[in-house]
């Protein structure tokens, strides 16, 4: 836990940098400029903006996020394996088999997604 103390200090310093950037830019910005409609409206290549900003969205985004979550959790279990893999090679390849089964099953999942065209563009 002591090793993380510098991280806290770095966090404090970077937050200080952010506040500094924000403060300096606020100080140096020109104030009292007239509010022009074109500046204040959302930008759409010069065309008058229409419609709300939040439209119905493709479920594809959600699917990618969930698939990312599942494969991320899979990756999490790779980390402890990687740590002890080298040592376990000396005592036989049992760990290799274990991870091969694990990876194989999840590759099946990947193949399934591919075959079902889940990753096509929206």
């Amino acid at each position, binding site marked *: *836990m002591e090793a993380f103390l510098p991280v806290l200090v770095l966090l404090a310093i970077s937050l200080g940098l952010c506040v500094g950037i924000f403060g300096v830019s606020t100080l140096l910005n020109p104030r009292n400029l007239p509010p022009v409609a074109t500046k204040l409206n959302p930008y759409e290549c010069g065309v008058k903006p229409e419609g709300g*900003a939040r439209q119905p*969205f493709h479920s594809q985004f959600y699917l990618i996020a969930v698939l*990312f*979550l*599942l494969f991320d959790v899979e990756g999490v279990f790779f980390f*402890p394996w990687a740590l*002890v893999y080298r040592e376990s090679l000396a005592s036989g390849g049992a760990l290799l088999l*274990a991870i091969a089964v694990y990876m194989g099953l999840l590759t099946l999942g990947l193949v399934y997604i591919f075959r079902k065209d889940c990753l096509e563009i929206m």
Partner: protein
Amino acid sequence: MKELFFIFFSLYTIAAALGVVLAKNPVYSAFSLILSFFGLSALYVMWGATFIGMIQILVYTGAIVVLFVFVVMLLDLGSVVTDHSHSWLTVMVSAIAVWFFSLLMLRTFNHTPLVAPATPLAESNTRLISQLLFTEYLWPFEILSIFLLALIIAIYALTRPDAADKRKVHP
């Protein structure tokens, strides 16, 4: 010294969690959730569970809250969701929750000191976890992969981006 850190991080986590519940806008709630997970991760690291602390940020903050944020952002709920009046039912339920919680706290504080002396681990936390995972808990590990596979199939079945949708997008 360690107690100070513990108190600070605990209060911070509680404040962020309160922010999740009390925020008007769901996007603010999601942001508070991210902050509270940081606090949680700091607490995990303080107790020596560095692996879980990092995985907490990697998986929870980096993936699960992304899911929440995707949905919350794209559905533009605004403050419609949070408009409600406080009926007597709400008050009663909150009172019961507070009572249970305070019972739990009293029990905990009567039996354990605020900061327990930390026994240094024989090896690093991650190494201990990996050693256990592949000896005693090997079967659960493999079953977990089957579980994840089932989840993959389930999520496809739920969202089902099939040909009909695609024809709409690409005429």
